[in-house]
């Protein structure tokens, strides 16, 4: 994993409204111990990450967006491999910043991912 590694973030269908993905996607939830799960883009493509998420893990994803490792570190957030759940798994660690700052950090990450756009979207169902 290098600074230019693309970190792939899965987006839950409820977190997209009229094509706009929520900034809430870019911060850990209360049960994530300050770690935001991503896929290591050096090890898996966006489409295969989506297939893994939905087919192998049986979880929901409407698509995949991406952030560079260096975009996270610019916000004071480190990223590292975390292969325990599965080999391509990685995390962005929010624990180095105060929780009250997560809101702003998530908006900054969201803006970066928004410019990059969808890397993969689930096929339309209708």
């Amino acid at each position: 994993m290098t600074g230019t590694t693309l970190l792939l973030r899965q987006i839950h269908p409820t977190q997209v409204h009229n094509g706009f993905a929520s900034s809430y996607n870019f911060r850990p939830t209360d049960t994530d111990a300050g770690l935001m799960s991503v896929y290591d883009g050096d090890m898996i493509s966006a489409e295969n990450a989506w297939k893994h998420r939905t087919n192998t893990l049986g979880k929901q994803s409407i698509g995949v967006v991406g952030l560079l490792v260096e975009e996270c570190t610019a916000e004071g957030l480190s990223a590292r491999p975390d292969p325990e759940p599965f080999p391509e798994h990685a995390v962005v660690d929010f624990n180095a910043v105060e929780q009250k700052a997560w809101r702003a950090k998530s908006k900054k990450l969201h803006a970066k991912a928004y410019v990059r756009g969808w890397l993969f979207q689930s096929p339309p169902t209708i």
Partner: protein
Amino acid sequence: MTTEPFLKPRLTGARFDSGAIPLEVLADFSVLAEMIVEVAKWKYREENPNRKRIPRGFMDGITLNLTGIETGSAIPVISIVVTTAAALFPSDQQTYFEDARQAIVEAVGAAEHNRKITDHLPQNLLGYFDRFGRNLMDGEAIELSYRNDRPPVRLTKETRRKLVLASSVEEFTEETSIHGLVHEFNQRAKTFELTRPDGTILRNIPVEAPHYDTVLEASNRFRQKACVRVSGVGRFDRNSRLHEIEKVEHVTILDPLDIEVRIDELKLLGTGWLDGKGVPPAHEGLDWLVDSFDEYFPDDIRLPFLFPTPDGNMLAEWSLKSWAPSLEIDLSTKRGIWHVLNLDTDEENQQDLDLTQLQDWQWLSSEIRTLGGEVE
């Protein structure tokens, strides 16, 4: 000719506060007049069981007219007009009309107080309530009284439904408003089909000329998920399930960010909606949010993107060039955390809001306006 006040129904609810009566509600009173006549005939047959038919001219020389509207709330004055030249026994006829009035009022009272409705009217005549009171909305009532010394009875959506369900009809109709996507428009049959947010489909919805273009446009924009609101008369089964739109009165293509449409989608979330973790937002809180946006959020400000949060609350976000504003909404306390970040300068601002207060909503809309959030 004599004219006497016969019934003074008092209309209560927001639409009637100014003392005015919407024209569509007048149609209900036309049905009431029909019902009074038919109940009067039934009363005649009850008292004259040996008569095979109603005497010819039973209705001659006697009519029910709207002769005025009293103020205070909206009180239409329905008078009985008797033309003595035409009526042979006007006083007898009038008695049956008065008995009919009493029976109708008592039937409504029975529905209101959960007593046996058919002690007052037979099932077939209760079918008139399928049309009388159909235009009432939530929170509205028609108060009826046949004697000044008794409190009025209240016909509401709920009591009307009980009356219809006590009748012999298998279904009932009601003014309704639904939304969904037009996935098919049959221009030859002049009908369309609507996919509702829960995936159910309403077929053969009749469409008349004034609405063709709107329905056609919505149909063409199906893949862009152009949602329409359809208002009209719906036909419901005895379990209050809508299974047909009988008449369409209005069709409107909605804002893509329409709050009610989005909230209806989110009402479908169940426990564990976020891959096993999410708490579904409480419907009561979601209804409050719809009402609050409806009441307090100006039309000239962009609507937000709305998202559920894993703890059962809501997040509203706007996308405004360099600004990223958001409002985290606690549905139980009805408080919000406003946060805005300038993505270029990192300038940040946060404010706690009491979302039960008009001034806090005004502050919110003023902030969004300042950030460039006016509708273009």
